[in-house]
């Protein structure tokens, strides 16, 4: 599955470059992965298969489970070499960002061997059965219940805000296995989505798309072997998974969106001193750009400091909030820069960039809600990091 790789950086760089040149279909250069639900071209399939076989879609996961087995330094070199030729990573989704790392920590050997290699090859798409209508920020109040039927559980209830449920093969799901306790009555189970009793309904969002679904479960089955961790110990695993989720989000959001200085030069113009003509707007663009820059430096510092650590630390909580706020503010400023042209919904009257910025602005409002809302993140910082207490209950 994986050829031996050199530990010498410059040698590894040569090896990586050679491999990419051999396997990356040049017609895909500078393209992006297909959206969820869209059929792949032959090139896209071949690139995914190659990266999956090599394990380089998840370069630092252990080779024993289909990962690349690379060091962080090698993974960084690989990323540079991929970027060099405009090659995207074809292995992505929930399984990579959240479920895989969690299962690597909490799964049994059998579970890891069953699921991780298929994630690493992007053969299986996962979805996340966490939130419920009454359990959003207060996730642990979830009600969806699993009854013990000997060799399997039977699950009934409702989940909501499930990304890509309509395309998913498997679901990792939080279920209530003890109604007498709150946090200690939750279990973490896996089950396939192609079974009776699962009703998936896409939710139409304000941006006009439907990236999330509601899921209604009626007597859905999960095998006992697919219980992760002990019974009623799912909350600990869920918290860890949410850390990975926040970590992946925080690294991502802040740099999504328009290049504001350039957009403003195009739409607003510059004055004779070379400054953007709208000074009020310019000041706010600068503040945003500085915030984004500082976040980028913080992410780099955090990676450096974590060298040798076990994974994302609690400080990722600050990055999630700053990241989503930077992203949302960038979208707001882009809209303001566009002026009247930032109000389009569809039609020929607007360019696709303009329409994309409007849709992106609306879609981005979710960033401070999902994966732990802004308020929850602030609670986490103030309680876990700063040690501020809960109010006394009198």
């Amino acid at each position, binding site marked *: 599955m994986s050829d031996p790789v050199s530990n010498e950086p410059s040698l590894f760089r040569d090896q990586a470059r050679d491999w990419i040149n051999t396997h990356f279909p040049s017609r895909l250069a500078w393209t992006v992965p297909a959206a969820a639900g869209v059929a792949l071209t032959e090139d896209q399939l071949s690139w995914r298969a190659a990266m999956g076989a090599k394990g380089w879609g998840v370069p630092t996961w252990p080779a024993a489970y289909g990962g690349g087995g690379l060091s962080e330094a090698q993974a960084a070199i690989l990323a540079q070499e991929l970027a060099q030729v405009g090659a995207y990573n074809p292995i992505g989704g929930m399984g990579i960002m959240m479920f895989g790392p969690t299962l690597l920590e909490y799964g049994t050997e059998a579970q890891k061997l069953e699921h991780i290699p298929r994630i690493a090859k992007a053969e299986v798409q996962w979805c996340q059965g966490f939130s419920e209508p009454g359990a959003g920020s207060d996730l642990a109040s979830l009600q969806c219940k699993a009854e013990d039927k000997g060799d399997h559980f039977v699950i009934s209830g409702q989940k909501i805000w499930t990304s890509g449920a309509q395309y998913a093969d498997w679901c990792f799901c939080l279920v209530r296995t003890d109604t007498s306790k709150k946090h200690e009555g939750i279990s973490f189970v896996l089950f396939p989505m192609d079974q009776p009793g699962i009703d998936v309904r896409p939710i139409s969002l*304000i941006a006009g798309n439907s990236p999330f679904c509601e899921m209604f479960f009626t007597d859905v089955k999960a095998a006992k072997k697919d219980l992760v961790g002990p019974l009623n110990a799912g909350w600990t695993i869920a918290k860890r998974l949410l850390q990975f989720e926040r970590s992946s989000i925080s690294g991502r959001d802040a740099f999504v969106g328009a290049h504001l200085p350039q957009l403003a030069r195009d739409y607003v113009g510059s004055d004779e001193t070379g400054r953007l003509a709208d000074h009020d707007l310019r000041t706010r663009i600068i503040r945003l750009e500085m915030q984004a820059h500082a976040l980028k430096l913080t992410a780099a510092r955090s990676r450096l400091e974590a060298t040798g650590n076990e994974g994302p630390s609690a400080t990722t909580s600050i990055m999630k909030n700053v990241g989503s706020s930077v992203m949302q503010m960038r979208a707001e400023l882009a809209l303001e820069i566009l002026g009247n042209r930032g109000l389009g*919904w569809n039609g020929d009257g607007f360019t696709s960039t303009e329409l994309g910025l409007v849709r992106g602005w609306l879609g981005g409002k979710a960033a401070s*809600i999902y994966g732990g809302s802004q308020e929850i993140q602030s609670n986490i910082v103030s309680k876990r990091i700063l040690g501020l207490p809960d109010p006394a209950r009198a």
Partner: protein
Amino acid sequence: MAVLSEEQSMLRDAVRSWVQEKSPVTALRKMRDSASELCYDLAAWNDMAQMGWAGVIIPEEYGGSDFGYLSMGLILEELGRTLTASPLLASGLAAASALVLGGSHTQKSLWLPQIAEGSTIATLAIDEGSRHAPDKVSTTFIAGKITGNKTFVLEGMAASLLIVSAKGADGIGLYLVKANDPGVKRTKLSLADSRGAGDIEFNGAAAEPLAGGEATLEKVLDRARAGVAAEMLGSALQAFEITLDYLKVRVQFGQVIGSFQALQHRAAKMFTDLELSRSAVEAALAAIDTDSPEAAQLVSLAKTIMGDTFHLVSNEMVQMHGGIGMTDAHDAGFYLKRARAAEAAFGNQAFHRDRYAKILGY
């Protein structure tokens, strides 16, 4: 709330009950989903016109009630609560103001009664680029003809009378152009807030001037701005109240979320901003009614404060509702989209901050 006359109180109450009964947010949703060409409900508009709302700022001799801008503001505020789409602002306020301020007796006699009864929709065609810049006009008026491109004309597709800013021999002024002139070409814009607007090309369209040049233009714009601000006040208030209600019923962690102090303080901030906004909006409308020299300054103040407030409240509406606020099935998205469109209309906050300071000499 400003201290109202008895007539104003009655007017406000009448609008309020009509809006709640005949024009809830579902009306806008239905209009949007039907992909209406007009972008407003014609029957509702006829109702409104019949109740005399289109003639509120029009003198009695031209078929209006001469009730003033504060009264018009009351109507727009109530309409704003449910995001009612109608040509009232473009026609009954902005275009009517242009005719009242700059029209000859003949022009007024011809157009104002039709506007007051709602049978003619008139509108302003001012902006030429993506940003509000009424002093930057390339459109020309030469030998009775208008030539140039106007963009983002509110109710531009529905209007039969266009009031166009253009450069004539004496500088920038306003001109009347009939929308059915062969020199007029219109293109519909599809907007996020589902309101009606269009781009308009003028290729030597026949036009007749209004009096007063750039001074009239500025006064007309200030009236439109104050009107938008009044509408925004209603929308922001409603968005806030919906959110406040949700804070009182949504339970997480065994508590209604409105019991969490961080949310309480953010709610208090919104309430505060809404109170300040109301003061500014009402002062701007009152200053227009008395033709105060401070009107321009107060209008820029109102448009800015109101813009910032609606911006904040619409964002908080989504955030405090959490996931449900992100769904199209909820009304939050409608308020959010309308907020940005209203902010941009006739100059955004940055434009009016700059203008406010320039008026005051710094």
